[in-house]
């Protein structure tokens, strides 16, 4: 998938033949009829489009929540329980899509990952699933240590190794535990800082989208440059998360 963002996502118009309400024939809103209120058949759209939003990453979460509640009042199966079976099925599908979309978009990381997924960028390398799978099967997972962490990770691993050795022999080295604890706090601070770094890339992405919508289309290269930066931040973030998890596990035992 090497298509540009704007060809795959965005506030696409609905297909021609779905412009009118199946029930009363009026022009309809995307998910329900503005005239008679009936739930409409779901259209296969992405989550941004579902909420009528452009594919931008800086997002007003409070407004999203308002829209979520408003759409829930129209689409939820409880409010269509007396409708025909066809409408009930549409209500179920529309409402699950609404919930899936809201859950994804309201969370900054899930939102970014989703946009990258739409852009055809794979994140599997550091993903939670891949990690868990590797853990459970005992396979050695390819871990790409972010370059700026190389030194710290090397040192931390040495310390963790020593801690485990101590535990085996029943020794306790309070200084070592304290040192690891300090490292953990540093990692957690870095983890938080990465979200802020990610947000600077959001702004770059959003301005490309704005520019494109103003008529000066962003090139595939320009878009790819921003997405690869986001992938980099997410990978580093995941790496640190897994590391903190390992540290916690080692300290607990």
């Amino acid at each position: 998938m090497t298509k540009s963002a704007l060809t795959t996502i965005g506030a696409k118009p609905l297909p021609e033949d779905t412009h009118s309400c199946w029930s009363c024939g009026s022009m309809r809103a995307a998910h329900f009829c503005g005239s008679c209120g009936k739930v409409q058949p779901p259209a296969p759209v992405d989550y941004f489009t579902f909420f009528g939003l452009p594919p931008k990453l800086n997002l007003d979460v409070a407004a999203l929540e308002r829209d979520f509640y408003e759409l829930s009042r129209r689409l939820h199966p409880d409010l269509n329980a007396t409708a025909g079976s066809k409408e009930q099925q549409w209500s179920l599908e529309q409402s699950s899509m609404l919930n899936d979309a809201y859950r994804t978009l309201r969370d900054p990381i899930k939102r970014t990952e989703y946009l990258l997924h739409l852009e055809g960028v794979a994140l599997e390398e550091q993903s939670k699933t891949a990690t868990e799978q590797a853990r459970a099967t005992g396979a050695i997972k390819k871990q790409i240590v972010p370059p700026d962490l190389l030194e710290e990770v090397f040192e931390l691993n040495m310390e963790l190794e020593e801690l485990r050795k101590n535990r085996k022999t029943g020794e306790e080295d309070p200084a070592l535990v304290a040192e690891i604890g300090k490292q953990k706090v540093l990692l957690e601070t870095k983890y938080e800082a990465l979200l802020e770094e990610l947000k600077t890339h959001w702004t770059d992405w959003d301005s490309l989208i704005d520019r494109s919508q103003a008529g000066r289309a962003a090139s595939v290269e320009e878009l790819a440059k921003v997405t690869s930066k986001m992938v980099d931040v997410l990978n580093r973030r995941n790496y640190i998360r897994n590391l903190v998890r390992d540290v916690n596990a080692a300290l607990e035992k």
Partner: protein
Amino acid sequence: MLGKVKNFPMATDHIVGIDLGTTNSLVAFMQGETPVVIPGDDGLNLLPSVVALDGNSQPIIGNAARNALIETPERAVYSIKRLMGRGVEDIQDELQLFPFRLAEDLQPGEVLRIKLGEKTFTPPEISALILRQLKRSAERFFGGPVTKAVITVPAYFNDAQRQATKDAGRIAGLEVLRLVNEPTAASLAYGLDKKQNGIVAVYDLGGGTFDISILKLHDGIFEVTATNGDTHLGGDDIDNLLITIALDDIRGDLGLDLHRNAEAVQAIRKAVIEAKIALSSQPSVKLDIELPGGKRYQREITRQQFEQLIQPVIDRTVGPCKQAMKDAGLKPEQIDEVVLVGGSTRIPKVRALVKELFRREPHTDLNPDEVVALGAAVQANILGGGSPATENMLLLDVTPLSLGIEVAGGVTDKIILRNSTIPASATQFYTTQVDGQANVAIHVLQGERELAEDCRSLARFDLKGIPPMAAGIPRVEVKFLIDANGILHVSAREQRSGKEAEIQVQPSYGLTDEQVESMILDSFDNAEEDFRRRQLVEARNEAATILSALEKGKKSPAWGQLTTDEKKQIAKMEKALAAANAEDDYAAIRKAIDALNQGTMRLAELMMDTAVSTALKGKTMDETDLGEGPTAPHPMAKAEFE
């Protein structure tokens, strides 16, 4: 809502709300603006969730069955909810503590069957008997068939337990419009008259299950943000502790081993439950139980001892509460209100624990035994199209457990995380590993653990009829959807050919559609006939009541005040009712009753006046025999049906 005045549908058929509890069950409905509980034919709101077989192998349910529990324990069963949707291998703990007698011919992988006397029943069938009893109470109340219901389940029930509950509804002849989580239902009952915004925690400790739910209330939307719990934690566990102590005492002090004596154990159980309840209001209580052989077991329990004893049980609710707060991203001080639900929250020590956990005084304004059923009635009203009382109310609930799929290495790949708002869906893609492979097996799991073997197996799906292609070429899109009941649906499509792939489901624990279908037929035919028979019996009873009241009326001074014409009319209608009552035509009896009721209206008024003036003359009302005049309310005349 839609810029127009909302028209609420006329209540054509009654949708009831049912709390199918471990210990007690209730049925409620929305009467105008308030939910009310419908009493049973014994006039009581609570129907004990106990089922027994009488000497003729006919089921008896509720209080009558409770007596059977002591007299013929091998023909009775209680707390069946603990076995709903479970397999024989995961009830070993229950079997230690509860007198469940499994069928001897149970095959591995088969749905549990419980022995009652000489018959065997699956847990959904036993629950269906309880549901059918509630259905009858509602039918008696409305004077017409009831076929639709909302049934509550513990929030922490998994897919199999939910499915089993839905099956029970179908077997009882009820269309289950929605399964609602119990704590959420309770919040609806509380929220009905307090339409405020804020964060509410519902702590629900019942007879056999514990739930904690955290909700965000926002202009009528009840959004669950996190839920947690334990489906095998409740008052039963406290009872079992007390029973164990009593049995050990008896063995130690009297040298009498009653562990295997079912009658004695049930007698002890009854006594310790009474003691437990008394200890919520008294500082100490005396147990005094008559034992086989004439000896007595006597023991005093102080509240302090009791609280010490139950501490480990109630402490098990702390972990789920903390996890739910963590999942909701909230600290105790961010929670505005705490609501208590379930009979076990009457225990002062439980209240103290909740107060400490959430750092505020919990709400107890509504009866903790009834609040879930009342909430179910509210939800039933919303589903039926709503009313002014429920306008703008909407429940957004979550799935309590993550849904996963087994992938290489026996690992669970989570595809829908716990606490996701439902309905929720996830799409997965599958392909083949061998050229021409036509089937793909999918193993669906529920739970939070990393390894598949530590999670609950929900079902195995076989994707069939994949068009023959080289390995890795087919692309089968499988959609997993959790509906608003918390129940999973799976559909599949092969993308290259566009063909709908056939899915064959093998539920890991549960009845197949065909099994449920046959159970419905067994009991449903009876249910319809039962209803007609009951209707007739009730009408006959009512007719008899009116006729005897009229006899009394004729002896009252009021009778003399009627005109000759009026008396003639009444006599004619009396004759008509007596004639109709001799036949089996329900409608004719009903019509004659209504006519006589109408025709004796003035007589009733005169009798009332006479009574009042007699009273003024210095006589008491008691001395004036009013009789059960035609105006006396008689919608729920007591009747025998079995």
